[in-house]
């Protein structure tokens, strides 16, 4: 069941899972904006341990403001980073001035 659409504000969860997780630490807890729905894919956390019978999960592309991700001075305000996040790593979040504009 697709939970998000392009434009929605989301927060990346810090699930603390071990193993072959594809959500890098730098993006956990961050708030961004969904830019696209990518469809459903088998969960790499299952595939990595040979489980090909797992449920396919929704995948989204999410954009984040670079100024929010890093403390560095002088990052242009419009620079963004876009990364793919599986549904179970996302929670709905409230609009924030820090999320990139849609």
């Amino acid at each position, binding site marked *: 069941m697709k939970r998000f659409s392009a434009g929605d504000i989301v927060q990346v969860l810090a699930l603390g899972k071990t193993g072959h997780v*594809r959500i890098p630490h*730098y993006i956990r807890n961050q708030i961004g904006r969904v830019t696209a729905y990518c469809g459903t894919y088998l969960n790499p956390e299952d595939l990595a341990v040979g489980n090909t019978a797992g449920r396919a999960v929704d995948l989204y592309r999410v954009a984040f403001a670079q100024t929010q991700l890093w403390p560095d001075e002088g990052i*242009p305000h419009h*620079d963004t*980073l*876009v990364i793919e996040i599986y549904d179970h790593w996302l929670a709905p979040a409230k609009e924030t001035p820090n999320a990139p504009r849609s």
Partner: protein
Amino acid sequence: MPHDHDHSEHEALVIEDAAGNIEAQIIVDALQEVLIGKGLLTAFEVTSAIAKLESPGIHLGAQVVAKAWTDPDYRARLLSDGRAAIQELDIPVTEARIIVVENTPQLHNLITCTLCSCYPRSILGQPPSWYISKAYRARSVREPRHVLAEFGLDLSEDIQLVVHDSNADMRYLVLPEPPADLERLTLNALEALISRDHLIGVAREVV
């Protein structure tokens, strides 16, 4: 070599492991020797598989981009469904999806894979060693403008930089802006101007 430490301390083999004796290679060599010894595999089959793996290259990506520059309908199809549009050119695509991201006068795209070495291999071949290096993987998201400057690209602050981390199932191709003399050039001439760096986004102007 025996391991007396936890594997979580380091990652699986990447380019940095250049001592010559690479653990994974020793295992692969031993396995291959056993399989060939038992008649389950021939050395020729192994080299054929390697040749197949290594046959795609930048020429395919360049062909896609030159076509998009010269055919607006194709460009639209490429941007909406990269995989399908690439397959139209009889290029086999093994990736689940290819997302084509377009540079404009106001926007520049940069591709990276912070977790490993994800790359659109069907159309660009194997990634360059710097793309797999831990330095590029970390710095391309942390300080991408500095990385671009080291590649000789001083991106104006007026231009929005979008970094794409191909951390999961999508693969990415940058569609650069066409050269100013697009109309005067043949498809072959256009393809010759396009480099791998343009298609990853560490270069911008095609001249």
